[in-house]
């Protein structure tokens, strides 16, 4: 994924056919988190989620529904990959950066949760005989996308 140029409202990247396929795979996985965090040493009971957890849960579900619609619009608005074409542009509006970051991270966290919340690095996970490659791919490509978007915003 290579940054080509940017205008006042859009950043254009160049992605290859494999990255395009992974982008669709990751974004179409959204939403996948269970919104439940595993208990940790510091927070064994997962902590109270506030006086009205149902309200927060429904607000989050609404946000995710809206993001899901945006994902479909975003992917549908991208230039198509023509036969035998190996490179294609990916156009991201500045105003889309933040929700795209939320979507990418949600898929990353969801894939991690689906894999049983492992603490190992990706390279160690890949070496495990029982590795769930689909979710490992989701985690790693979502991380790549996240890094590109954060870098574009000057965060790193």
């Amino acid at each position: 994924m290579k940054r080509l140029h940017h205008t006042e409202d859009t950043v254009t990247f160049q992605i290859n056919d494999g990255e395009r396929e992974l982008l669709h795979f990751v974004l179409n996985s959204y939403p996948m988190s269970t919104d439940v965090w595993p208990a940790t040493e510091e927070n064994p009971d997962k902590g109270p989620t506030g006086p009205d957890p149902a309200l927060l849960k429904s607000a989050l579900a609404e946000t995710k529904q809206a993001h899901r619609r945006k994902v479909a619009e975003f992917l549908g608005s991208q230039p198509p990959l023509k036969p035998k074409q190996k490179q294609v542009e990916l156009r991201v509006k500045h105003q889309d950066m933040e929700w795209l970051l939320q979507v990418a991270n949600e898929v990353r966290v969801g894939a991690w949760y689906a894999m049983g919340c492992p603490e190992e690095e990706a390279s160690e996970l890949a070496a495990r005989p029982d590795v769930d490659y689909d979710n490992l791919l989701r985690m790693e490509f979502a991380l790549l996308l996240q890094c590109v978007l954060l870098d574009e915003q000057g965060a790193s």
Partner: protein
Amino acid sequence: MPETETPLLLPEIHEETSTKSKDAQAPAFLVIVWNDPVNTMVFVTHVFQKVFGWNKKKAEIHMLEVHQNGKSVVARESQERAEAYVHQLQAYSLHVTMEPDK
């Protein structure tokens, strides 16, 4: 000159019972972000900057507190505002809870 007459309508006098606003009397809630092994430090710093409008330095201090101590209290607010922060942080998939400030 005529003498000053007692007016028929006197201004109403209300006894002031409290100067505190409704918000100040409402119980405060703490918004707590918990450590997790999946969200990256750069991402968490970015989220704190976006959600709270903090500069990078302050965001990094809270991010490091989460990373090193397992949690950080990122806000002390009324229930409504605390819920709004929890919602925003959850949208970024951070592990966040809120509880009354005792």
